[in-house]
């Protein structure tokens, strides 16, 4: 078996072990930890489509995470208050509906944002995506209808048919389910004709055009897909906290997602999972001891960038092979 497959299997075991430990040691907080891990990993799987496969270093994915969060929050609040959003358009407490709306809205906003950002590349692309996300951040802060700077609380977590999402374990399993679906999608995408074109755009976009495929169309589609996945993660994050605020839209989050992917392994199927695991464990393990735990995260990141460019998966399984 390929070493990467073994590594991925180990990651799945780790994901399964956390809730098992939570039940065994009666530490329900571990369930919250695992939920956070799954949601961050899901958001990073989204970014991994653009950054990992397409080489598009988006520093604006917090925008999509936040959009998903506000979709969940706003729809929930309207449903709770029984006020329609617009005449004839009610809110909802149904997670599947919220997810679909989050994905569509994130992708819809990613299209113009990508269409403009993708005219540039390199550092300019990073800066323009950041600028777009900051615009949305300031818009949220100055929009009093939904809490402005203070954010928006909703009192009851949204529902999923047949699942008691108010309980931590079932909600965790819903998050794991979506993470699994996203990983499956990423895996199929990686080996699909679209994935081949996207990876070609990263390696050499002139070559892609010279076989007759426009790099722009491929990249824009990838950017929108990427945004949609990160958007769903945002909706789950809002449901985890029953709260959404502009901090979900802040550039810190965009940076964290990039860090997760670099830590785990850029473009690798389980890179986001590995990265999120290290991140959440550090945050929990060191965060209790020192508020400066991010200093150690920075040290590890420095080590990875200097000595292990393939991230954790690269260390374990070497460079990726494309058949």
């Amino acid at each position, binding site marked *: 078996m390929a070493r990467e497959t073994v590594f991925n299997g180990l990651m799945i075991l780790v994901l399964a072990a956390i809730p098992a430990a939570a039940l065994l040691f009666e530490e329900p907080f571990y369930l919250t930890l695992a939920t956070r891990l799954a949601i961050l990993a899901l958001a990073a799987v989204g970014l991994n489509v653009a950054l990992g496969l397409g080489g598009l270093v988006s520093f604006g994915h917090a925008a999509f995470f936040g959009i998903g969060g506000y979709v969940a929050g706003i729809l929930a609040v309207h449903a709770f208050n029984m006020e329609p959003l617009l005449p004839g358009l009610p809110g909802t407490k149904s997670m599947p509906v919220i997810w679909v709306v989050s994905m569509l809205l994130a992708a819809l906003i990613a299209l113009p944002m990508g269409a403009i950002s993708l005219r540039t590349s390199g550092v300019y692309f990073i800066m323009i995506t950041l600028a777009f996300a900051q615009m949305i951040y300031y818009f949220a802060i100055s929009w009093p209808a939904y809490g402005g700077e203070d954010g928006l609380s909703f009192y009851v977590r949204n529902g999923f048919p047949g699942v008691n999402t108010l309980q931590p374990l079932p909600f965790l399993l819903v998050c794991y389910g979506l993470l699994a679906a996203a990983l499956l999608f990423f895996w199929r995408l990686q080996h699909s004709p679209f*994935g081949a074109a996207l990876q*070609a755009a990263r390696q050499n976009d002139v070559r892609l055009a010279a076989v007759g495929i426009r790099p722009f169309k491929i990249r824009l589609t990838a950017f929108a897909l990427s945004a949609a996945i990160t958007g769903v993660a945002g909706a789950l994050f809002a449901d985890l906290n029953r709260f959404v605020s502009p901090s979900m839209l802040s550039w810190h989050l965009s940076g964290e997602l990039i860090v997760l992917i670099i830590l785990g392994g850029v473009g690798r199927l389980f890179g986001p999972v590995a990265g999120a695991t290290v991140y959440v464990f550090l945050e929990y393990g060191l965060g209790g001891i020192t508020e400066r735990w991010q200093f150690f995260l920075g040290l590890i990141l420095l080590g990875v960038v200097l000595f292990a460019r393939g991230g954790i998966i690269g260390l374990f399984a070497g460079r990726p092979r494309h058949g």
Partner: protein
Amino acid sequence: MAEPLLQLRGLKKSFGALLATDNVSLTLRPGEIHALIGPNGAGKTTLIHQIAGTLQPDEGELRFAGQDITSLHMADRVQLGLARTFQVSSVLPEFSALRNVMLAVQARQGTSFRFFADVRRDARLTDAAAECLARAGLDGRAAVPAAELSHGERRRLEIAIALATGPRALLLDEPMAGLGPEGSKDLVVLLNALRSEVPMLLVEHDMDAVFALADRISVLVYGRVIATGTADEIRRHPEVRAAYLGDDA
């Protein structure tokens, strides 16, 4: 005389004060190999770039298969059947030789917006790509990442990729460069075998190859075409001898 497949009319391109393409008009007819020769810096690559769409001419018109392609995107020109190879090999370093060619096949088949099919299991894709690799003499190297191919193998891969796009005309920018005498000879055989299938505009420094292959030769000097004719006409052309071939030619 057959209607030209590719027609350049009054093409001009300057880089600042440098006139790299100076009012170039030439044609590529069905079934022919048209060689473009000229000293280094004459503007041959710049001309290929404009035909392929990597560079936009300042003036002039490009027609391909009866259509004005002057402002068409490079990728759309390839879709019409105008394929090219690069003077400096331009491949996908992480992909295997086979997957480099498969990308061209999927572009021709128009399947690049399929998100769930597995390219590795699509026989229509892998078989067509393997066939192009074999024609370029790379069948034994299909699984090797392009970054690990030798210089000569990468030149061949360029040709395999161009063939896989399903070309109606080929623009070849110094395909023999750096191949050595043996490699050049092999490539002459390959291009000769392809001539009935697809006409070629061939930029080449290797004069043995040019005289062996070309039906017509155009000579480019300082961005201008100073002569067009058969191999014999070009050999005898006084201006060409002075400007390019030198006295020993």
